[in-house]
């Protein structure tokens, strides 16, 4: 019996307006490309990374620390891709980026 691959990683919201509609939309779009379950935790609240509504109710303001968690076969790749979004502060992708 194989354990389900699980990865976690912390990111910081550096966006001035917090994790608003546009960036949230980017996360959802990206998360939906992976089969893994993607959870985002702020304090004691955990939401579904594939749900725009959930992300909005998270109200992650500027400076919030979030824990990303992915569970599934492509967990590592999913996490890396989403963390990269935070790292480049949701700026549009470089053309050299690998396909998701």
């Amino acid at each position, binding site marked *: 019996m194989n354990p389900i691959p699980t990865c976690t990683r912390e990111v910081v919201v550096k966006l001035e*307006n*917090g994790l*608003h*509609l*546009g960036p*949230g*939309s980017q996360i*959802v*779009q990206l998360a939906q490309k992976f089969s893994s379950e993607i959870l985002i935790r702020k304090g004691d609240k955990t939401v*579904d990374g*594939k*749900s*725009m*509504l*959930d992300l*909005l*109710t998270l*109200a992650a*303001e500027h400076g919030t620390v979030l824990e990303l968690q992915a569970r599934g076969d492509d967990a590592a790749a999913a996490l890396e891709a989403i963390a990269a979004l935070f790292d480049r502060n949701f700026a*549009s992708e470089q053309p050299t980026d690998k396909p998701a």
Partner: protein
Amino acid sequence: MEVRRGIAVAPGVAIGPALVLGSEDFRIPQRFVRVDAIDVELARFRTALEAAVAEIAGHEELAASRLGQQYGAIFAAHRQLAQDPKLVKDIEDLIRQKCYSPEFASSRVLRKYAKTLQNLGDRYFAERANDLFDLEKRILRHLLGERREELTQLTMPVLVLAHNLTPSETANLDKKFVLGFATEVGGKSSHTAILAGALELPAVVGVGSFLADVSGGETIIIDGNEGTVIIDPDEETLGSYRDAERRMRSAAVRLNSLGPLRSETKDGVPIHIYGNIEFPDEVDHCAERGAEGIGLYRTEFLYLERDTEPTEEVQYGAYVRVLKAFPNGPVVIRTLDLGAEKFPQAMQEVIEATPNPALGLRSMRLTLHNTPMFKTQLRAILRAATMGDVRIMFPLVSTLLELRQAKMILGDVVEDLEEHKVAFNAQVKVGMMVEVPSAALLADEFAREVDFFSIGTNDLIQYTLGVDRANPAVANLYSSADPSVLRLIEGVVKASEKHNLPVSVCGQMSSDPIYTPILVGMGLRELSVTPQAILEVKQAVRNLTVPQSREILDRARSLDVARDVENYLRGEMKKFSPDVV
């Protein structure tokens, strides 16, 4: 009887039964469904949701291509909200488990999430609740059918009362049955108001909230001269309005006799009067009343009448239709002047979400962002120009660089047409609207680079006085008679004279005969006016001499407040044209 005061935007009086257009809120007709109907109701919900998603995707594409990626992204987020698996599951669960109707279930779930957002205690996230209310409205509209269906099913004459009418709704009013309209919001120079003028429908806007007092069916008087709406008029009022209606009809007959007469001052100076039009069909009104050409053809309604962009052929057809009515006179075609108010409702909200839409991406600025669309229009104009005296006019030019950029694109189109051996007229005159104070101040410089000027007073006033022309709270500051506005116009006329450049005035100011004397006094010899004002302006011209008009201008110059200038001009008009109402 109740009298409400608003802003008069299109003259005339209409009397008839009220038709109240539904407000933005939907009434949910049925909260629960029968157990055996659940599958059917679930399917109905999915169809409505799909339609809503497709609609948002359409806006997304349009916004991305016309306004740029960042605007498209906002709709992408809306689309994701609509497709959110949680949301869909919540709604379907309520239908399946509690027998809620799809309308009730959608409304319940979206409002629940909206409330959560509102309670988060962060202003930005609380505002997102509006996005959810928006989505609620959109889904309900697809479940319940088109909102303003009542307008397409008229069988008897009515007066339309609404909170707001968009320009496209106004354009599509059925003139056979709609006698006039009144709205709670809107201002004097909004496009809805301009359209009411074009349709020659008596209209009052900016009445403030009054719909709660009208249930529909009661007799209403819309007085587009005074700007009043009278609900349930008493016999006496009704009688006096019926008399006024008769008198106005006979005055109109008298004015009509002026049609074939020449437009020149008493001392024989010709003042050319052209028509401003929105729709090709308006050329007939212009020709009947003796206009010498079209001084302003606003082409944006070609874009508003349909969901997709009009093809080159559709545009070509419209331009040719106008040219056929005026084979000799000039026909000035203004390139696309789309602003936020002319976008589909959902896109409007996005553009208006920027702090200052009037100072933002609109008109020429939008066109320069959108070269393919611009080129299609220029090709259609250049091709149509083989059939008459067509002129191209660029709107809202604020810097010389913009003008040069537009002319460069025009140059590209010319080259392209030559290369493909398409028949076109390369000698088309190119002019610009002077409607931003910067252009008026630099008229001398601009004059070297164009073939003609047309002064657009509506925007010039808005930008000079810094007044939002659609905001009733400040609409009283908006005046053609303001000395600052008059001085700017005079400056443009002087610069034109120096460069021997034709100049006209095409804003609403030129359509009001009280301003005819000062415009003639400043040296203007071309006026472009709304079709319904052609005869009145012609009458004002024929009652004047040029020296008299200069005297009136001198006196007006000595007054320093808009209200005094306006009162003075009104008094002068009574002296010179006592029979103009």
